[in-house]
């Protein structure tokens, strides 16, 4: 009866646990986006409820701003909405609402109902600009600096922790 063989289960377990730990860090949401550090793709899109006026990202030049992709058909957007609203109250930086593949009317209603935290809302009806931004999991949020470079990207609903741990410190750092 060699006691070592009683250690075999422990050994196997440690190996499995190590892989599980590695697996956790592989969360697809955590994969650094290739867009980070690149210039934000250019666009010029109609503004919600004023389709003859257009808004382009050059209008945001020399500003740090947040681009928040949302849609009225998207459930998780509602989850993160209170956080965006809160963020807007703190008015750290302007927020551009990016209405993605939505009916403009539905989007307006949605904003009336749940509150409109955006400084401006642009409409990407066919999602073509969204494609340039690599949007696939609405909601998505981008932080863009004064030079128009994407500094931060979050796929999926923003949490309070994202705001306080990542976004606000980054804004502070960028504005210095």
């Amino acid at each position, binding site marked *: 009866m060699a006691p070592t063989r009683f250690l075999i289960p422990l050994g196997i377990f440690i190996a499995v646990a190590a892989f599980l730990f590695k697996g956790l860090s592989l969360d*697809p949401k955590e*994969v650094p*986006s290739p867009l980070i550090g*690149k210039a934000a793709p250019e666009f010029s899109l109609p503004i919600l409820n004023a389709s003859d006026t257009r808004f382009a990202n050059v209008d945001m030049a020399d500003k740090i701003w947040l681009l928040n992709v949302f849609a009225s058909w998207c459930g998780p957007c509602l989850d993160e909405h209170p956080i965006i609203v809160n963020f807007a109250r703190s008015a750290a930086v302007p927020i551009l609402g990016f209405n993605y593949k939505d009916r403009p009317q539905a989007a307006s209603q949605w904003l009336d109902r749940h509150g409109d935290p955006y400084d401006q809302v642009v409409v990407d009806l066919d999602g073509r600009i969204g494609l340039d931004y*690599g949007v*696939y*999991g609405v909601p998505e949020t981008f932080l863009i600096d004064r030079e128009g470079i994407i500094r931060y990207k979050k796929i999926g609903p923003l949490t309070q922790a994202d705001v306080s741990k990542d976004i606000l410190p980054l804004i502070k750092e960028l504005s210095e």
Partner: protein
Amino acid sequence: MKPRHKRLILVVVALALLGLGATFVLKAFRSNLVFFYTPTEVFAGQVPQGQAFRIGGMVLEDSLQRNEDGVTVRFAVTDTIEDVPVQFTGILPDLFQEGKGVVAQGRINMEGMFVADQVLAKHDENYMPPEAAEALERAMKIKMETE
């Protein structure tokens, strides 16, 4: 037989069973792993011939066509660089939509058509299976590098 021998035989039988089990597992493993490819990789011909694999990406807008029988559909899966034509016979998942993420499992036929025997859907209104997301991320990377 001495008790020691009996125990030995028992251990041998148990090990044999274990070995048999392991053999099945390994054999099944070799032939049943399904690898994942992006449309760009499919286009470049990096996929195994005659073996089932998965592709992921977005359903190309306006690509959905239905055959006369109503149950065979054709659509294209894109990672924004390349498109792969897909044919599927059966009922598409409730959340299948043009412009949304999709993962399909099947084989490439002689004409370069991907014949899917499974179209997967995750039950989430914001449906983007990780594999589809991966395909788009990789494509984005390639685009960034070539620019």
